Protein backbone atom coordinates (compact mmCIF):
# COMPACT_ATOMS: atom_id res chain seq x y z
CA UNK A 1 0.00 0.00 0.00
CA UNK A 2 2.92 2.31 0.78
CA UNK A 3 3.72 2.92 -2.87
CA UNK A 4 0.19 4.04 -3.72
CA UNK A 5 -0.78 7.71 -3.74
CA UNK A 6 -3.51 9.10 -1.48
CA UNK A 7 -5.86 9.32 -4.43
CA UNK A 8 -5.20 5.70 -5.43
CA UNK A 9 -5.82 4.53 -1.88
CA UNK A 10 -9.03 6.54 -1.72
CA UNK A 11 -10.26 5.01 -4.96
CA UNK A 12 -9.87 1.58 -3.30
CA UNK A 13 -11.86 2.81 -0.29
CA UNK A 14 -14.47 4.28 -2.62
CA UNK A 15 -14.84 0.82 -4.17
CA UNK A 16 -15.82 -0.51 -0.73
CA UNK A 17 -12.49 -2.03 0.32
CA UNK A 18 -11.37 -0.48 3.63
CA UNK A 19 -7.94 -2.10 3.69
CA UNK A 20 -6.11 1.20 2.89
CA UNK A 21 -7.60 2.80 6.02
CA UNK A 22 -4.62 1.89 8.19
CA UNK A 23 -2.11 3.28 5.69
CA UNK A 24 -4.08 6.54 5.31
CA UNK A 25 -4.31 6.79 9.10
CA UNK A 26 -0.54 6.34 9.41
CA UNK A 27 0.07 9.06 6.83
CA UNK A 28 -2.21 11.72 8.30
CA UNK A 29 -3.14 10.97 11.91
CA UNK A 30 -0.22 13.04 13.23
CA UNK A 31 -1.29 16.15 11.34
CA UNK A 32 -4.96 15.70 12.15
CA UNK A 33 -4.37 15.05 15.85
CA UNK A 34 -1.98 17.97 16.23
CA UNK A 35 -4.36 20.33 14.45
CA UNK A 36 -7.28 19.20 16.64
CA UNK A 37 -5.19 19.28 19.81
CA UNK A 38 -3.93 22.80 19.22
CA UNK A 39 -7.37 23.96 18.12
CA UNK A 40 -9.24 22.50 21.11
CA UNK A 41 -6.41 22.33 23.66
CA UNK A 42 -7.90 19.17 25.01
CA UNK A 43 -6.28 15.84 24.32
CA UNK A 44 -9.38 13.77 24.94
CA UNK A 45 -11.46 15.75 22.48
CA UNK A 46 -8.55 15.72 20.01
CA UNK A 47 -8.46 11.91 20.20
CA UNK A 48 -12.21 11.71 19.61
CA UNK A 49 -11.98 14.19 16.75
CA UNK A 50 -9.11 12.24 15.12
CA UNK A 51 -11.01 8.99 15.26
CA UNK A 52 -14.15 10.67 13.96
CA UNK A 53 -12.28 12.31 11.06
CA UNK A 54 -11.02 8.95 9.82
CA UNK A 55 -14.42 7.33 10.24
CA UNK A 56 -15.93 10.16 8.19
CA UNK A 57 -13.17 9.62 5.62
CA UNK A 58 -14.41 6.05 5.24
CA UNK A 59 -18.13 6.79 5.40
CA UNK A 60 -18.01 9.77 3.05
CA UNK A 61 -15.22 8.54 0.79
CA UNK A 62 -17.36 9.17 -2.28
CA UNK A 63 -17.41 12.87 -1.48
CA UNK A 64 -13.69 13.08 -2.19
CA UNK A 65 -13.39 13.95 -5.85
CA UNK A 66 -9.70 14.78 -6.00
CA UNK A 67 -10.22 18.44 -6.88
CA UNK A 68 -8.49 19.45 -3.64
CA UNK A 69 -5.48 17.78 -2.04
CA UNK A 70 -6.48 14.81 0.08
CA UNK A 71 -4.85 16.39 3.14
CA UNK A 72 -6.89 19.56 2.60
CA UNK A 73 -10.07 17.48 2.42
CA UNK A 74 -9.21 15.73 5.70
CA UNK A 75 -8.33 19.03 7.37
CA UNK A 76 -11.66 20.46 6.22
CA UNK A 77 -13.43 17.58 7.98
CA UNK A 78 -11.28 18.19 11.07
CA UNK A 79 -12.00 21.91 11.03
CA UNK A 80 -15.76 21.28 10.86
CA UNK A 81 -15.59 18.79 13.72
CA UNK A 82 -13.50 21.07 15.91
CA UNK A 83 -15.84 24.01 15.33
CA UNK A 84 -18.75 21.75 16.29
CA UNK A 85 -16.95 20.66 19.47
CA UNK A 86 -16.36 24.29 20.43
CA UNK A 87 -19.96 25.27 19.67
CA UNK A 88 -21.32 22.39 21.74
CA UNK A 89 -18.98 23.18 24.62
CA UNK A 90 -20.05 26.80 24.53
CA UNK A 91 -23.76 25.92 24.44
CA UNK A 92 -23.29 23.52 27.31
CA UNK A 93 -21.60 26.20 29.33
CA UNK A 94 -24.40 28.66 28.61
CA UNK A 95 -27.12 26.17 29.55
CA UNK A 96 -25.59 24.41 32.50
CA UNK A 97 -22.89 26.76 33.64
CA UNK A 98 -20.38 23.90 33.36
CA UNK A 99 -16.79 24.30 32.40
CA UNK A 100 -16.19 24.88 28.72
CA UNK A 101 -14.11 22.45 26.72
CA UNK A 102 -11.24 24.88 26.74
CA UNK A 103 -10.22 26.30 30.04
CA UNK A 104 -8.76 29.71 29.42
CA UNK A 105 -5.89 30.74 31.65
CA UNK A 106 -6.73 32.91 34.62
CA UNK A 107 -6.02 36.62 34.02
CA UNK A 108 -3.00 36.56 36.33
CA UNK A 109 -1.46 33.87 34.17
CA UNK A 110 -2.12 35.58 30.90
CA UNK A 111 1.02 37.66 30.78
CA UNK A 112 3.78 35.54 29.31
CA UNK A 113 6.22 38.19 30.51
CA UNK A 114 5.35 37.56 34.16
CA UNK A 115 5.41 33.85 33.67
CA UNK A 116 8.86 34.05 32.19
CA UNK A 117 10.18 36.00 35.09
CA UNK A 118 8.74 33.50 37.52
CA UNK A 119 9.58 30.22 35.92
CA UNK A 120 12.33 28.57 33.96
CA UNK A 121 10.45 25.43 33.27
CA UNK A 122 11.32 24.21 29.83
CA UNK A 123 7.68 23.57 29.16
CA UNK A 124 6.94 27.25 29.52
CA UNK A 125 7.55 28.04 25.86
CA UNK A 126 4.90 25.62 24.76
CA UNK A 127 2.51 26.82 27.43
CA UNK A 128 3.00 30.45 26.48
CA UNK A 129 2.53 29.82 22.79
CA UNK A 130 -0.51 27.67 23.39
CA UNK A 131 -2.00 30.29 25.68
CA UNK A 132 -1.41 32.96 23.09
CA UNK A 133 -3.12 30.74 20.52
CA UNK A 134 -6.06 30.25 22.84
CA UNK A 135 -6.47 34.00 23.20
CA UNK A 136 -7.38 34.11 19.50
CA UNK A 137 -10.99 33.71 18.40
CA UNK A 138 -11.47 30.17 16.98
CA UNK A 139 -11.68 31.32 13.35
CA UNK A 140 -8.37 33.18 13.63
CA UNK A 141 -6.75 30.32 15.54
CA UNK A 142 -7.79 27.95 12.78
CA UNK A 143 -6.12 30.15 10.17
CA UNK A 144 -2.85 30.32 12.14
CA UNK A 145 -2.80 26.58 12.76
CA UNK A 146 -3.49 25.71 9.15
CA UNK A 147 -1.06 28.26 7.79
CA UNK A 148 1.85 27.88 10.21
CA UNK A 149 1.65 24.23 11.22
CA UNK A 150 -0.09 22.57 8.31
CA UNK A 151 1.53 24.62 5.55
CA UNK A 152 -1.73 25.35 3.74
CA UNK A 153 -1.99 28.26 1.34
CA UNK A 154 -4.61 30.93 2.00
CA UNK A 155 -6.65 29.57 -0.92
CA UNK A 156 -6.61 26.10 0.68
CA UNK A 157 -7.50 27.54 4.09
CA UNK A 158 -10.45 29.26 2.44
CA UNK A 159 -11.61 25.84 1.22
CA UNK A 160 -11.19 24.31 4.68
CA UNK A 161 -12.85 27.15 6.57
CA UNK A 162 -15.56 27.74 3.99
CA UNK A 163 -14.90 31.42 3.50
CA UNK A 164 -13.26 33.68 0.91
CA UNK A 165 -9.52 34.01 0.48
CA UNK A 166 -9.82 37.70 1.31
CA UNK A 167 -11.49 36.80 4.61
CA UNK A 168 -8.66 34.38 5.39
CA UNK A 169 -6.07 37.09 4.74
CA UNK A 170 -7.90 39.49 7.05
CA UNK A 171 -8.12 36.83 9.76
CA UNK A 172 -4.43 36.01 9.36
CA UNK A 173 -3.51 39.66 9.80
CA UNK A 174 -5.69 40.10 12.88
CA UNK A 175 -4.41 36.85 14.36
CA UNK A 176 -0.75 37.73 13.87
CA UNK A 177 -1.34 41.20 15.26
CA UNK A 178 -3.01 39.75 18.37
CA UNK A 179 -0.30 37.13 18.87
CA UNK A 180 2.43 39.67 18.45
CA UNK A 181 0.82 41.83 21.12
CA UNK A 182 0.20 38.85 23.37
CA UNK A 183 3.84 37.84 23.15
CA UNK A 184 5.00 41.38 23.77
CA UNK A 185 2.64 41.86 26.72
CA UNK A 186 1.06 44.57 24.56
CA UNK A 187 4.05 46.83 25.08
CA UNK A 188 5.30 48.03 21.77
CA UNK A 189 8.95 48.85 21.50
CA UNK A 190 9.90 46.38 24.21
CA UNK A 191 12.25 43.53 23.70
CA UNK A 192 10.03 41.07 21.87
CA UNK A 193 12.00 37.93 22.40
CA UNK A 194 12.12 38.47 26.12
CA UNK A 195 8.38 38.27 26.10
CA UNK A 196 8.05 35.62 23.50
CA UNK A 197 10.32 32.85 24.62
Amino acid at each position, binding site marked *: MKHLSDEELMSIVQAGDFSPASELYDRYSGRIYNFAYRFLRNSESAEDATQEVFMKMIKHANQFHGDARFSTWLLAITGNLCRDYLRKAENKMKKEGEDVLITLPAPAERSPHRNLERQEDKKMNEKIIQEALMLLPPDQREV*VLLSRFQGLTYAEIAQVAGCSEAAVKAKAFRAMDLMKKAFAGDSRGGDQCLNVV
Partner: protein
Amino acid sequence: MSECGVMSENMPMLLTESLDPAQRELTHQHIESCAACASEWSAMKETWQILETLPTVEVPARVKQRFLAEISAASAVPANVVPFRRRSAARWLAEAAAVVIVGGSAFYAGHRTTPRIDLTPADARVTAIQPYSIAESRVLPAASISPTIEGRPDIENVQFSDASPSNQQIGVSFDITSHVTVTGKPTDKSMVRLLRYVMENEDKMSPSRSRAIDWVRATYSRVDNPDPEITEALANVLRNDEHQGVRIKAADTLQSMQSAMTDGTRDALVEALKNDPNPAVRVKAVEALAKLARSGAVLDPDMVDTLRKKAAQGDENVYVRVKAAEALSSIQPR
Protein backbone atom coordinates in the same frame (compact mmCIF):
# COMPACT_ATOMS: atom_id res chain seq x y z
CA MET B 1 -6.15 53.10 4.62
CA SER B 2 -2.65 54.57 4.97
CA GLU B 3 0.26 53.09 3.07
CA CYS B 4 1.62 51.65 6.33
CA GLY B 5 -1.75 50.01 7.00
CA VAL B 6 -1.75 48.34 3.59
CA MET B 7 1.82 47.15 4.04
CA SER B 8 1.05 45.78 7.50
CA GLU B 9 -1.82 43.76 6.07
CA ASN B 10 0.57 42.33 3.49
CA MET B 11 2.99 41.10 6.17
CA PRO B 12 1.26 37.79 6.99
CA MET B 13 1.39 36.99 3.27
CA LEU B 14 5.07 37.89 3.18
CA LEU B 15 5.58 35.35 5.96
CA THR B 16 3.88 32.61 3.98
CA GLU B 17 5.49 33.78 0.73
CA SER B 18 2.09 34.11 -0.84
CA LEU B 19 2.34 37.68 -2.09
CA ASP B 20 2.74 38.16 -5.81
CA PRO B 21 6.26 39.29 -6.80
CA ALA B 22 5.32 42.92 -7.48
CA GLN B 23 3.53 43.35 -4.16
CA ARG B 24 6.33 41.55 -2.37
CA GLU B 25 8.92 43.90 -3.81
CA LEU B 26 6.78 46.94 -2.97
CA THR B 27 6.23 45.78 0.60
CA HIS B 28 9.91 45.07 1.15
CA GLN B 29 10.84 48.48 -0.24
CA HIS B 30 8.39 50.14 2.12
CA ILE B 31 9.68 48.17 5.10
CA GLU B 32 13.22 49.23 4.31
CA SER B 33 12.26 52.89 4.19
CA CYS B 34 9.79 53.03 7.12
CA ALA B 35 11.11 52.54 10.65
CA ALA B 36 7.66 51.82 12.14
CA CYS B 37 6.88 49.12 9.56
CA ALA B 38 10.40 47.68 9.89
CA SER B 39 9.79 47.26 13.61
CA GLU B 40 6.33 45.80 12.94
CA TRP B 41 7.79 43.37 10.38
CA SER B 42 10.58 42.32 12.70
CA ALA B 43 8.11 41.59 15.51
CA MET B 44 5.79 39.68 13.19
CA LYS B 45 8.64 37.61 11.79
CA GLU B 46 9.82 36.79 15.28
CA THR B 47 6.29 35.78 16.34
CA TRP B 48 6.10 33.54 13.27
CA GLN B 49 9.46 31.93 14.11
CA ILE B 50 8.51 31.39 17.73
CA LEU B 51 5.35 29.57 16.66
CA GLU B 52 7.57 27.03 14.94
CA THR B 53 8.98 25.96 18.29
CA LEU B 54 5.63 24.53 19.35
CA PRO B 55 6.39 20.81 19.60
CA THR B 56 4.55 18.12 17.73
CA VAL B 57 2.46 15.88 19.96
CA GLU B 58 2.30 12.14 19.45
CA VAL B 59 -1.02 10.55 18.65
CA PRO B 60 -1.80 7.99 21.39
CA ALA B 61 -1.73 4.45 19.97
CA ARG B 62 -5.20 3.76 21.34
CA VAL B 63 -6.72 6.13 18.76
CA LYS B 64 -5.61 3.89 15.91
CA GLN B 65 -6.75 0.77 17.75
CA ARG B 66 -10.18 2.30 18.31
CA PHE B 67 -10.40 3.45 14.70
CA LEU B 68 -9.45 0.04 13.29
CA ALA B 69 -11.85 -1.68 15.67
CA GLU B 70 -14.65 0.61 14.54
CA ILE B 71 -13.86 -0.09 10.88
CA SER B 72 -13.93 -3.82 11.53
CA ALA B 73 -17.31 -3.45 13.18
CA ALA B 74 -18.53 -1.36 10.24
CA SER B 75 -17.18 -3.92 7.75
CA ALA B 76 -19.05 -6.69 9.56
CA VAL B 77 -22.34 -5.10 8.54
CA PRO B 78 -21.95 -4.71 4.78
CA ALA B 79 -24.04 -2.19 2.97
CA ASN B 80 -24.40 -4.48 -0.02
CA VAL B 81 -25.33 -8.14 0.18
CA VAL B 82 -22.73 -10.39 -1.42
CA PRO B 83 -24.34 -13.35 -3.19
CA PHE B 84 -23.57 -16.71 -1.58
CA ARG B 85 -21.54 -19.10 -3.69
CA ARG B 86 -21.18 -22.74 -2.78
CA ARG B 87 -17.53 -23.67 -2.38
CA SER B 88 -16.38 -26.65 -4.37
CA ALA B 89 -15.72 -29.98 -2.64
CA ALA B 90 -12.07 -29.83 -3.79
CA ARG B 91 -11.63 -26.53 -1.95
CA TRP B 92 -13.17 -27.92 1.23
CA LEU B 93 -10.77 -30.86 1.03
CA ALA B 94 -7.76 -28.63 0.38
CA GLU B 95 -8.64 -26.41 3.34
CA ALA B 96 -9.16 -29.39 5.65
CA ALA B 97 -5.80 -30.83 4.55
CA ALA B 98 -4.11 -27.48 5.19
CA VAL B 99 -5.53 -27.36 8.73
CA VAL B 100 -4.26 -30.86 9.43
CA ILE B 101 -0.78 -30.10 8.04
CA VAL B 102 -0.42 -26.76 9.88
CA GLY B 103 -1.77 -28.14 13.16
CA GLY B 104 0.32 -31.29 12.95
CA SER B 105 3.46 -29.40 12.04
CA ALA B 106 3.01 -26.98 14.91
CA PHE B 107 2.49 -29.84 17.37
CA TYR B 108 5.53 -31.68 16.01
CA ALA B 109 7.70 -28.55 15.96
CA GLY B 110 6.67 -27.59 19.49
CA HIS B 111 7.50 -31.02 20.88
CA ARG B 112 10.77 -31.25 19.03
CA THR B 113 12.14 -27.78 19.72
CA THR B 114 11.21 -27.38 23.39
CA PRO B 115 13.80 -29.80 24.83
CA ARG B 116 16.45 -28.52 22.40
CA ILE B 117 16.12 -24.98 23.75
CA ASP B 118 16.54 -26.21 27.29
CA LEU B 119 19.63 -28.19 26.47
CA THR B 120 21.47 -25.66 24.31
CA PRO B 121 24.15 -23.81 26.27
CA ALA B 122 23.46 -20.07 26.40
CA ASP B 123 26.93 -19.21 25.09
CA ALA B 124 26.45 -21.34 22.02
CA ARG B 125 23.30 -19.41 21.07
CA VAL B 126 24.94 -16.05 21.63
CA THR B 127 27.86 -16.86 19.33
CA ALA B 128 25.41 -17.98 16.65
CA ILE B 129 23.95 -14.44 16.34
CA GLN B 130 25.53 -12.61 13.43
CA PRO B 131 25.88 -8.85 13.91
CA TYR B 132 23.36 -7.09 11.67
CA SER B 133 24.90 -4.04 10.14
CA ILE B 134 22.66 -1.11 9.24
CA ALA B 135 24.33 -0.24 5.97
CA GLU B 136 23.53 1.65 2.79
CA SER B 137 24.49 -1.32 0.63
CA ARG B 138 25.87 -4.79 1.16
CA VAL B 139 26.71 -7.97 -0.71
CA LEU B 140 25.40 -11.19 0.76
CA PRO B 141 26.10 -14.75 -0.29
CA ALA B 142 22.91 -16.69 -1.01
CA ALA B 143 23.88 -19.24 1.65
CA SER B 144 23.54 -16.57 4.36
CA ILE B 145 20.00 -15.64 3.32
CA SER B 146 17.00 -17.48 4.70
CA PRO B 147 14.96 -19.04 1.87
CA THR B 148 11.82 -17.69 3.56
CA ILE B 149 10.83 -14.16 2.57
CA GLU B 150 8.86 -12.66 5.44
CA GLY B 151 5.81 -10.52 4.66
CA ARG B 152 5.68 -8.73 1.33
CA PRO B 153 8.62 -6.31 1.28
CA ASP B 154 8.69 -3.62 -1.40
CA ILE B 155 11.53 -4.38 -3.81
CA GLU B 156 12.60 -1.83 -6.42
CA ASN B 157 15.41 -1.12 -8.87
CA VAL B 158 16.08 -4.81 -9.45
CA GLN B 159 19.20 -5.62 -11.49
CA PHE B 160 20.52 -8.99 -12.60
CA SER B 161 24.13 -10.13 -13.05
CA ASP B 162 24.69 -13.07 -15.37
CA ALA B 163 26.66 -16.12 -14.30
CA SER B 164 30.38 -15.57 -14.16
CA PRO B 165 32.29 -18.09 -16.36
CA SER B 166 34.80 -18.70 -13.58
CA ASN B 167 32.49 -19.64 -10.71
CA GLN B 168 28.96 -19.73 -12.16
CA GLN B 169 27.75 -17.18 -9.60
CA ILE B 170 24.73 -15.10 -10.54
CA GLY B 171 23.65 -11.91 -8.78
CA VAL B 172 20.39 -10.09 -8.10
CA SER B 173 20.60 -6.62 -6.60
CA PHE B 174 17.72 -4.45 -5.49
CA ASP B 175 16.58 -1.68 -3.16
CA ILE B 176 14.42 -2.96 -0.37
CA THR B 177 12.25 -1.00 2.01
CA SER B 178 11.86 -2.92 5.20
CA HIS B 179 10.88 -1.83 8.68
CA VAL B 180 13.55 -2.52 11.24
CA THR B 181 13.05 -2.33 15.00
CA VAL B 182 16.18 -2.18 17.11
CA THR B 183 15.74 -2.82 20.82
CA GLY B 184 18.27 -2.40 23.59
CA LYS B 185 19.29 -0.36 26.56
CA PRO B 186 19.76 3.41 26.11
CA THR B 187 23.41 2.87 27.02
CA ASP B 188 24.07 0.24 24.33
CA LYS B 189 26.64 1.58 21.91
CA SER B 190 24.68 0.38 18.87
CA MET B 191 21.61 2.22 20.12
CA VAL B 192 23.60 5.39 20.82
CA ARG B 193 25.20 5.30 17.35
CA LEU B 194 21.83 4.73 15.68
CA LEU B 195 20.29 7.69 17.49
CA ARG B 196 23.31 9.80 16.66
CA TYR B 197 22.85 9.01 12.97
CA VAL B 198 19.15 9.82 13.17
CA MET B 199 19.75 13.18 14.82
CA GLU B 200 22.67 14.29 12.68
CA ASN B 201 21.49 13.33 9.21
CA GLU B 202 18.78 15.75 8.33
CA ASP B 203 18.56 14.75 4.66
CA LYS B 204 18.25 11.05 5.48
CA MET B 205 15.72 11.25 8.28
CA SER B 206 11.97 10.98 7.94
CA PRO B 207 9.55 12.08 9.23
CA SER B 208 11.03 14.42 11.80
CA ARG B 209 14.35 14.93 13.55
CA SER B 210 12.60 17.29 15.87
CA ARG B 211 10.52 14.37 17.14
CA ALA B 212 13.68 12.29 17.51
CA ILE B 213 15.25 14.98 19.69
CA ASP B 214 12.12 15.18 21.84
CA TRP B 215 12.29 11.45 22.36
CA VAL B 216 16.02 11.50 23.12
CA ARG B 217 15.42 14.20 25.73
CA ALA B 218 12.60 12.25 27.38
CA THR B 219 14.64 9.05 27.38
CA TYR B 220 18.17 10.14 28.19
CA SER B 221 17.33 12.73 30.83
CA ARG B 222 16.29 9.72 32.94
CA VAL B 223 19.48 7.77 32.24
CA ASP B 224 22.39 7.94 34.69
CA ASN B 225 25.60 8.92 32.92
CA PRO B 226 24.28 8.98 29.35
CA ASP B 227 26.80 8.31 26.60
CA PRO B 228 28.60 11.55 25.62
CA GLU B 229 28.05 10.65 21.96
CA ILE B 230 24.41 11.64 22.44
CA THR B 231 25.33 15.12 23.63
CA GLU B 232 27.95 15.42 20.88
CA ALA B 233 25.27 14.62 18.32
CA LEU B 234 23.03 17.29 19.85
CA ALA B 235 25.95 19.74 19.76
CA ASN B 236 26.40 19.05 16.04
CA VAL B 237 22.70 19.67 15.49
CA LEU B 238 22.98 22.94 17.42
CA ARG B 239 25.94 24.01 15.27
CA ASN B 240 24.74 22.93 11.86
CA ASP B 241 21.00 22.61 11.60
CA GLU B 242 19.34 25.14 9.35
CA HIS B 243 16.00 25.08 11.19
CA GLN B 244 15.93 27.22 14.29
CA GLY B 245 13.18 25.10 15.86
CA VAL B 246 15.47 22.07 15.75
CA ARG B 247 18.43 24.08 17.11
CA ILE B 248 16.25 25.31 19.98
CA LYS B 249 15.32 21.75 20.86
CA ALA B 250 18.95 20.63 20.67
CA ALA B 251 20.03 23.37 23.10
CA ASP B 252 17.10 22.65 25.38
CA THR B 253 17.92 18.94 25.43
CA LEU B 254 21.58 19.64 26.19
CA GLN B 255 20.40 21.61 29.21
CA SER B 256 18.68 18.50 30.55
CA MET B 257 21.77 16.31 30.06
CA GLN B 258 24.39 18.23 32.00
CA SER B 259 26.12 15.14 33.31
CA ALA B 260 27.05 13.99 29.80
CA MET B 261 28.39 17.33 28.59
CA THR B 262 31.84 17.31 27.08
CA ASP B 263 34.11 20.23 26.23
CA GLY B 264 32.79 19.98 22.68
CA THR B 265 29.17 20.33 23.74
CA ARG B 266 29.97 23.28 25.99
CA ASP B 267 31.79 24.92 23.09
CA ALA B 268 28.71 24.40 20.91
CA LEU B 269 26.57 26.21 23.51
CA VAL B 270 29.04 29.08 23.67
CA GLU B 271 29.16 29.30 19.86
CA ALA B 272 25.35 29.33 19.74
CA LEU B 273 25.24 32.09 22.37
CA LYS B 274 27.79 34.11 20.43
CA ASN B 275 26.68 33.61 16.88
CA ASP B 276 23.25 32.05 16.45
CA PRO B 277 21.07 34.51 14.51
CA ASN B 278 17.92 33.40 16.32
CA PRO B 279 17.39 34.97 19.76
CA ALA B 280 15.36 32.00 20.97
CA VAL B 281 18.35 29.70 20.32
CA ARG B 282 20.64 32.12 22.17
CA VAL B 283 18.17 32.13 25.07
CA LYS B 284 18.26 28.34 25.27
CA ALA B 285 22.05 28.30 25.04
CA VAL B 286 22.50 30.84 27.83
CA GLU B 287 19.96 29.00 29.98
CA ALA B 288 21.97 25.81 29.57
CA LEU B 289 25.20 27.62 30.50
CA ALA B 290 23.53 29.29 33.49
CA LYS B 291 22.34 25.91 34.71
CA LEU B 292 25.82 24.55 34.23
CA ALA B 293 27.25 27.39 36.33
CA ARG B 294 24.63 26.88 39.04
CA SER B 295 25.52 23.20 39.22
CA GLY B 296 29.04 24.19 40.27
CA ALA B 297 30.77 23.21 37.02
CA VAL B 298 34.01 25.04 36.31
CA LEU B 299 33.59 27.26 33.26
CA ASP B 300 36.61 27.94 31.08
CA PRO B 301 37.81 31.52 30.50
CA ASP B 302 36.34 31.74 26.99
CA MET B 303 32.94 30.79 28.35
CA VAL B 304 33.14 33.36 31.14
CA ASP B 305 34.29 36.01 28.68
CA THR B 306 31.35 35.29 26.36
CA LEU B 307 28.92 35.50 29.28
CA ARG B 308 30.45 38.84 30.36
CA LYS B 309 30.16 40.27 26.87
CA LYS B 310 26.59 39.07 26.52
CA ALA B 311 25.58 40.50 29.90
CA ALA B 312 26.93 43.89 28.83
CA GLN B 313 25.84 43.87 25.17
CA GLY B 314 23.33 46.71 24.82
CA ASP B 315 21.61 45.45 21.68
CA GLU B 316 21.24 41.86 22.93
CA ASN B 317 17.92 40.40 23.99
CA VAL B 318 17.23 41.42 27.61
CA TYR B 319 16.46 37.88 28.71
CA VAL B 320 19.78 36.66 27.30
CA ARG B 321 21.57 39.45 29.17
CA VAL B 322 19.80 38.66 32.45
CA LYS B 323 20.58 34.96 32.13
CA ALA B 324 24.22 35.68 31.26
CA ALA B 325 24.53 37.87 34.37
CA GLU B 326 22.85 35.17 36.43
CA ALA B 327 25.32 32.60 35.14
CA LEU B 328 28.24 34.88 35.99
CA SER B 329 26.98 35.36 39.52
CA SER B 330 26.69 31.60 39.98
CA ILE B 331 30.25 30.81 38.95
CA GLN B 332 32.11 29.16 41.78
CA PRO B 333 35.57 30.58 42.57
CA ARG B 334 38.31 28.13 41.56
